[in-house]
């Protein structure tokens, strides 16, 4: 699954105003308001969507990293209890 696209789709679904969301184009991008347009609440909700999709435990989800999209993907790969072949399949779970 294209994790970068999955992150962007979750961010787009979460953010209150679509015009402030910035699609991320590099796995090295850190998750900050400057780079994504997501404020602290949007970021929390986006991470909750990602955790829900991968069925990551709530306690573990509290430690999902903000350092980069790649680090976030690595964390998810380590803790996920399920996976998806396509972004569409993952979005079906969280939409």
């Amino acid at each position, binding site marked *: 699954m294209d994790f970068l696209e999955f992150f962007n789709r979750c961010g787009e679904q979460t953010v*209150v*105003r679509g015009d402030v969301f910035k699609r991320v184009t590099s796995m090295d991008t850190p998750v900050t308001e400057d780079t994504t347009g997501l404020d602290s*609440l949007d970021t*929390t*909700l986006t991470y*909750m*969507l990602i955790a*829900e999709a991968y069925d990551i435990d*709530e306690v573990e989800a509290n430690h999902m990293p903000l350092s980069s999209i790649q680090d976030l993907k690595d964390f998810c790969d380590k803790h996920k209890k399920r996976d998806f072949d396509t972004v569409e399949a993952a979005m079906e779970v*969280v939409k």
Partner: protein
Amino acid sequence: MIYMTYSATACTTETTVYEDIAFPQRVHILPDTFRKAKTGMSYPPHNMFNKVITEEAINYVKANPVKGKTAFMLAAGSQGWMGTSGRYDKNPEAELHYKTKLPFITLTNIYAGRIATMFHVHDHVSTDASACASSLKVLMDMQNLMFHYGFDRVIVLSGEDSVCIPSLEFFGDAKACLLLEDEDKRKPSAFDDVNHGFHVGQGAALTIFEKEHPNMRAPLARFMGAYTSAEDNTNPLGQRDDGEGYSKAIEGALFVAKLHRNRVRLVKTHGTGTPVNNAAEKSALLRSLDEFVATSYKPRIGHTLSASGLLETGLLLDDLKSGVIPKIPNRTADDSVFLSEDVPAFDGVFLSLAAGMGNVYSAALFSTEV
């Protein structure tokens, strides 16, 4: 002049039975609103409010800025939605039990700030916790902003998610709503000697009020005035038989609107149908108005709590547009005032009433003559 220019409502006449709870009862729910909310993915009322926060409303506000300021008010009924109570944890895995992973987002003021941002509102954001009177109570605040503080548009979002374990158990324990065990004895109705009481219901309403401007939508109604009163009662959960609170609210609204009591010929009652409210609201109306007809929507859609005042006002406007003032369902006696039959709609001033726990009584006056 202030006009109501937009009204979107969400509610249902359908009922669903919930038996696996401490006080089994029938409720009016929109099942798809429990998607995700049930597992905590989303804050509980999110999906319900999304039914009324339409692109049409957002685009209208964005595309037609007003000269003065714009406010956003969330008539939430309480400061926080949902919660847990060990007292009622009969079955923590049951449907309707929320497992909210983000407790802070159930604080209504945070939700209000989020939705205000969606509407690009940054002049004023507020929330209201006046229980079931909330959506009419904020109209007193709305007119204050419009008359005294330079506001030209106020967006009111109202609703709370009443169909959840804590709410159903609270109303069931208090015998405020109809339970399954009551169904062979009575049906939901209001101002009736045989049938009385209500089912709890989900509901939300988005309403926009504006001063006249060049690009204003065709008004649905003219807002005339609103007032909210308390009454002299030592029990903040009770209502006086003589309807003092309702009367003071009605008379306050008439004063603000500069209308004589004989101008009001139609009333959308609070109409929960509980014996206490029947007595209080009927006494107040017969004392404070002259000739009128009255209806109630709660026997049809349930008690949508904080949303009920504005939501039911929106439903009444829809019914008036289609030419009918609907009867109060399940009346057992012929009644031409507290309607036992539908009557043809007529233009003019109508009164909307609501009451909330904590001795809160709200009245709002509208005119269909715009």
